């Protein structure tokens, strides 16, 4: 069998990449000594793919439909797939993100049976008017659960501040109102458009030989659709949508999320480098070893809940940070000052080296988890990057590059979302 390999030398682990005859890629990482085996079958289709062409006509589908379809694929003519996987001792699940829908299971035994089932059911939607209606009750309760989740609400309010048009701001599960408009026909339109080999990938992580995986894929993959997917996203202005958004919920103390858009659209190796550099710069600015963190913590403007994140994808990117604070506006002001100071002074070499060493250590640490490796492989593939190039990217990121991307991103205005107590 023909497959490519990419080895991360420092760690001694290898990605095996196989191309099925339909063009669909299969990625595999061997984890010697691990009991757990994980397989994922995913499509590069998520909550932000709401406008696309069907039979030559542009359609706009209801918010939350990708997630709705994810729920429905588990239901098959001869029963519920969740049930079948658990009967074989596997634990099945799926998730829908802004840009992906991924079906997966993990198990320790009977991998082959479970893997065949996964590859089979994702190619076989079984939708009826009745089962689509029934799902509205379940998803409705999922939506209601998120309505009460302050962390989730403040995060989406920030995205709403940052983005004017980009559909990344759309709620992943939609709303009670939007899902009421979903029907069987629309779901099939989405399925037929986005569940095609060129838009999908299979990822497997576990302790076995690569050929055994690839031959099962050969046997099980038989897509009828082969069309190329054309995705349409509106041109997002460089400016933000609004500076501030506030909501009230039953929380004990205000909660804030602050962020900035990254307007540069990069992909491949450049994306990896940019993520690493922005990660180091953000860590330097507000990580636990920063002056800013100590100041805010000691003034009790933030607490242990404070977090930050770099989220770069080939079609959108943002940096965000936040947590609980008795005075989000004051906190945001102090953070903005610190950002401006680092923008003008730049990061010092000693801190840069130390943080880079630490971040690379964290990356190596993350390779302890089979599930994490599988998720990252899928995400990297859909962003046209190679996960094990991260090591090489760390070597290439230097202080000048880091200072320059940090300055570039913070040329943009930041936005602030706040949840206040009732």
């Amino acid at each position, binding site marked *: 069998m023909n497959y490519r390999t990419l080895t991360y030398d420092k760690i001694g682990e290898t990605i095996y990449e196989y191309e099925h005859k339909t063009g669909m890629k299969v990625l595999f990482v061997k984890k010697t000594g691990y009991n757990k085996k994980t397989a994922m079958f995913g499509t590069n289709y998520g909550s932000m793919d709401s406008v696309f062409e069907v039979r030559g006509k542009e359609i706009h589908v209801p918010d939350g439909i990708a997630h709705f379809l994810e729920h429905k694929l588990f239901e098959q003519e001869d029963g519920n797939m969740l049930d079948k996987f658990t009967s074989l001792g596997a634990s099945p699940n799926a998730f829908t993100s802004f840009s992906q829908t991924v079906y997966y299971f993990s198990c320790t035994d009977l991998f082959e049976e479970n893997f065949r089932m996964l590859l089979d059911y994702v190619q076989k939607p079984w939708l009826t008017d009745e089962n689509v209606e029934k799902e509205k009750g379940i998803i409705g309760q999922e939506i209601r659960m998120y309505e009460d989740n302050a962390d989730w609400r403040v995060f989406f309010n920030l995205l709403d501040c940052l983005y004017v048009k980009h559909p990344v701001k759309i709620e992943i599960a939609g709303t009670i109102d939007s899902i009421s408009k979903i029907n069987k026909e629309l779901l099939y339109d989405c399925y037929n458009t986005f569940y095609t080999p060129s838009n999908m990938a299979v990822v497997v992580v576990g302790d076995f030989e690569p050929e055994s995986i690839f031959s099962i894929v050969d046997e099980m993959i038989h897509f009828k659709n082969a069309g190329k997917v054309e995705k349409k996203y509106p041109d997002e202005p460089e400016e933000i949508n609004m500076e501030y958004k506030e909501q009230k919920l039953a929380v004990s103390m205000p909660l804030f999320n602050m962020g900035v858009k990254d307007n540069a659209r990069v992909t491949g190796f450049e994306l990896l480098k940019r993520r690493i550099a922005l990660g180091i710069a953000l860590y330097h600015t507000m990580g636990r070893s920063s002056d800013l963190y100590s100041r805010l913590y000691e003034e009790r403007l933030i607490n242990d809940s404070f977090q930050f994140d770099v989220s770069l994808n080939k079609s959108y990117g943002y940096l965000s940070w936040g947590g609980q604070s008795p005075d989000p506006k004051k906190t945001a002001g102090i953070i903005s000052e610190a950002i401006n100071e680092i923008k003008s002074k730049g990061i010092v070499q000693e801190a840069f080296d130390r943080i880079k060493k630490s971040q690379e250590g*964290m990356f190596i*640490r993350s390779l302890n988890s089979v599930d994490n490796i599988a998720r990252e492989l899928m995400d990297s593939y859909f962003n046209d990057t190679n996960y094990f190039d991260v090591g090489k990217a760390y070597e290439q990121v230097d202080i000048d590059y880091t200072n320059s991307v940090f300055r570039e991103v913070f040329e943009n205005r930041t936005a602030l979302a706040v949840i206040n107590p009732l």
Partner: protein
Amino acid sequence: MGMHSDKTTAEKLAEKNGIVFYRINSDKFKTSRADVFFVDNLSKERASGNAILPLMMKRGCKSYPTVKELESKLEELYGADINAGVSKKGELQFIGFHMSHISDRYTNGERLFEQCSDLLMCMFENPLIEEDGFKESLFRQERDNMVDYIRSKVNDKIRFSLTRCIEEMCVDEPFSIPEDGTEEDVLLLNPKNTLAIYQEMVKTYPAYVYISGEVDDKSIQRFIDSFMASVDRQKIKKINQTNVYKEVKEVRRIDEPMDVSQGKLCMGFRTFVEPTSDEYYPLVVYNGILGGDPHSKLFRNVREKASLAYYAQSVLEKYKGLMLIMSGIEAENRSKAEDIILEQVEAMKKGDIEKEDIEAALKSLETGMKTMQDNQGAIVDFFLSQHLTESGEDFNSMTEKLRAVTLDDIVRVAQKVQLDTIYFLKPDGSRSKEEVV
């Protein structure tokens, strides 16, 4: 498919002054770690004092007196991690200190275990103290943080309803005390009385220490020799057994209104099964069949058949012998959901259980036992549980005991289970159903 069946074991290395040292044998991980647990009886008087100790220690130590210095040092050590916190298992409280770092294989020859474990020891042997108490300015900040943290528990409505159900259900028992105590208890703490609790911890609480990953014998021996070497540990505190017996006189109903969209139902049951009894294993299988995974009765009936909820599940509290069933529902579906849940509990008592249900639950439990061995932290937690109950089980023997469970065993346990408290976090109506925020 490849096979790898090396046993994951915990080897006892030493025992001195109420401290037991274990080494976890498993070499597949990219990290090494040391976990230290001090144990106390869960009590209203001491819970908050014990809980503030890890917060104080995370602020630094004699060699690294500020967070900035401490964190910078950890960054230099390839992003090593030091963490601390409290938890409870039954009516015992654990104060845990955890250190982990990447294996020396990836550090160009730099050896991390000794440096990292010295840092860990510095944190709990030489905390930031002035005169006869913890450093006051830091103490005030952490005490206020703790109050904020306790208040913020209401933010997570699912966890909050679970905690409230347990508090109401075990109102006269120590188990009702949260792992970090209550706001009023926190406010009684001061630098002086907290330092006294700290000294009791290091001098009298029994301790368990676990070392995992690629650590050489010499470094381990050095760690054992120096661990608390300067502390006088003559009198070790006696740890109580958690009581699992309490008669249920009548089922209590607690409704708590709040401005939320979705109602959270939490039903508390007593199983009267001790973690060391033979009935523990049938209880675990029972819980799996009733509400453990998507094959379970609760998932199938509450979610898939009736479309009432996104989640419906049951969980066990092993040490206190409790089972809690949770589901998020519309307020108007509350009695319907309760009826369906209680029908499933009844069906279990009548032995209305298919052979496939038992097999599915067993397979899922076996998978759980195996995958736990792929997580360094989970392995430590597993062995801590065994050492605590002096059960002597390992992953393989425990899997064998689960496999030996029969339908009769499950029904016998099912018939002991009694509903005690129904808690409902009830939408107060101020958020209308149509409102989309």
